[in-house]
């Protein structure tokens, strides 16, 4: 049992949970994830570790509750606990001192982006966060990112906050301006968004890293369900990733594989599947 220390609602159905997991807190590096099960019958859900406190022995998870598995997880309040938290899994993020770095987050992808941006800033990069969502309440971690980012730019589809439109439009402004053009880009969000960002940066030859969240079971390389094609080769996101060179990822195949269970899931899950697939990667 992994004790839930706190469970706060950030916005809408997005929760920030602090979990007691001393071993994971100690060994965790930015970019890694855990596999979580709320209770004995639950699915194994991969979730990015947003932050860790070694002294307190805790990890922080930011979770958007959309499917059954994530809704059960965020339904657990202190002093109860989560049945299983396993990790830290995956390779740590690859950080260099590039100079200017743009960190682009869509929806709950911003939660995955957060530790990457923090690590990039920590390494001495000048970090601009470009985050977005459908509407203002869905834009998360704006203040938290502002603590270490040089700039936090926001785009909402309905124009309720920041630029009206997609994060890609804001990123394009940075790319167009030679003085602001990043040397490296992190992009985390729905598959379509990451694909769009990769296509945007490709002509500039800008290093573009994406963090993928394919369907996963064990998270330790055992099942191969999370395989993605990167540069023509099959890679397992759980052990070779989750971070990959965005210019080499086959995003169409990833999107197709993420939809595997759409038509197989039960009635209620079916209703949520479309939404889930668009937003699923945000759970990580």
């Amino acid at each position, binding site marked *: 049992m992994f004790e839930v220390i706190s469970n706060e609602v950030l916005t809408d159905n997005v929760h920030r949970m602090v979990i007691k997991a001393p071993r994971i807190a100690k060994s965790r590096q930015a970019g890694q994830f855990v596999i979580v099960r709320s209770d004995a019958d639950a699915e194994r859900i991969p979730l990015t570790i947003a932050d860790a406190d070694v002294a307190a022995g805790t990890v922080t998870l930011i979770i958007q509750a959309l499917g059954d598995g994530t809704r059960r997880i965020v339904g657990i309040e202190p002093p109860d606990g989560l049945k299983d938290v*396993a990790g830290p899994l995956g390779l740590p993020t690859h950080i260099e001192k590039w100079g200017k770095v743009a960190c682009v987050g869509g929806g709950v992808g911003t939660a995955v982006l957060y530790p990457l941006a923090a690590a990039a800033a920590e390494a001495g990069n000048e970090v601009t966060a470009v985050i977005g969502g459908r509407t203002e309440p869905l834009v998360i971690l704006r203040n938290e990112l502002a603590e270490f980012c040089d700039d936090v730019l926001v785009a909402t589809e309905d124009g309720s906050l920041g630029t009206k439109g997609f994060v890609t439009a804001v990123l394009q402004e940075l790319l167009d301006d030679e003085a602001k053009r990043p040397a490296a880009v992190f992009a985390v969000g729905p598959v379509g968004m990451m694909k769009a960002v990769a296509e945007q940066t490709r002509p500039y030859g800008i290093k573009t890293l994406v963090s993928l969240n394919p369907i996963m079971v064990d998270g330790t390389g055992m099942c191969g369900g999370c395989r993605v094609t990167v540069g023509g080769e099959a890679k397992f996101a759980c052990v070779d990733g989750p971070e990959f060179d965005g210019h080499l990822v086959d995003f169409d195949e990833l999107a197709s594989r993420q939809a*595997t269970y759409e038509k197989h899931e039960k009635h209620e899950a079916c209703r949520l599947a479309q939404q889930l697939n668009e937003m699923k990667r945000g759970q990580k």
Partner: protein
Amino acid sequence: MSSNDLTPKQRLAIERAKMTEQAPERRVTNFEEVNQGLPEAVAVKEAQRCLDCKNKPCIEGCPVGVRIPEFITALAEDDLPKAAEILLTDNALPCTTGRVCPQEVQCEALCIRGKKGEPVAIGWLERFVADWAAQHADTPKLFGNKPAKKTGKTVCVVGSGPGGLTAAGELARMGHDVTIFEALHATGGVLRYGIPEFRLPKAIVDREVANLESLGVKIECNVIVGKTITVEEIMEEFDACFVANGAGLPMFMNIPGENFRGVYSANEYLTRVNLMGAYRDDARTPVVRGKKAVIFGGGNTAMDSVRTAMRLGADPAIIAYRRSRAEMPARIEEIQHAEEEGIQFDFLVAPLEILGDEDGSVRAVKMQRMELGEPDASGRRRPVPIEGSEFELEADVIIVAIGVLANPILTNACPALDLNKWGNIIVDENTMTSISGVFAGGDIVRGGATVILAMGDGKHAANQIDVFLKNI
């Protein structure tokens, strides 16, 4: 009549018992165990077939060295407590091995009665005695019949599969303080995620694990050695370590179309069904329930996969194997059961490409017929493609069961461990790795092997760890 009164001639006259099985047409509709076990009278009579011969070759064939003639003789006398005591002393997981061991190439292959006629059904008798012990006796008491004096030494066992469980049981009985780290959320390793309920009910795994816990073995799940904790950190906390983390990295065929939806590694397919319970209607983890399933491979994992696919509604469920029936490495009983259940076997075929529909779901596989050519390095005749023999096989589920490679998570985080070119851990004759006090066994050393070989390694390693601990 007492067994002692039987003459060899009378023993030779007894015919081998028949296993009680669920009828094929019924069992393909459920996940209950296929073999129902022998009734006591049948088991006792089968035990009386044993000649208790002088050389006891069967023991040589057993990787854990069970005193087979001794427990069988006790059973022949209908002395079940004695039979159970002998078996449980020698074998930590007899309910399991009685079901999943390839007896036909081990103990039963060497049985003297097999030279003329059929060998004694050692596996079925093992199962009978083990199940009896579990049902009739206070098993932990039997299991740990010699209360161990605590040595004060601590051992960490990595992995709760057959190798880890066996080592943990042996070490606990020697009085050492044992902690198992398991990466998944549930114990048992391949016994839990790999072998289906219809071949090894999970209640048995639960019971075998409970036996270990009653011996004082501590089990911590969700600890991924190499990620959550490293081998070096383990050795700071423990006096010795036994690495039995298995071979969990599935091989794919590297043909076009392998990433279409509905193409699984056997590991993923079986894990979804067995560990995550996807065969149950109320399961939260889904699996694609195909109507037409094609499985590549010829081992036990391929048989488990194809029979699972049929139980989940696939018809046809086809084994596609590139050699012929004789070369299939699966247990004979599994092949027979599969045939009875209506599994189709397509031999001497190889896949060229997996074909998908517009959604990206698999719809068929393009195959090629093979013929057997000259023997290869393994001595088996090598399959050679036949020109112009291509054909398409419709499928909406494809399961790749062609083997596993060493999972590198633990070893990558521990560069001091010497590995062979396939990434398996190298051990000496005492099962010790290149790090003093760190031992290893099972699939991470052998590559993909069997439950019983992993158990043999666990038993051997426990003895060597005991020696090591006495000298530190």
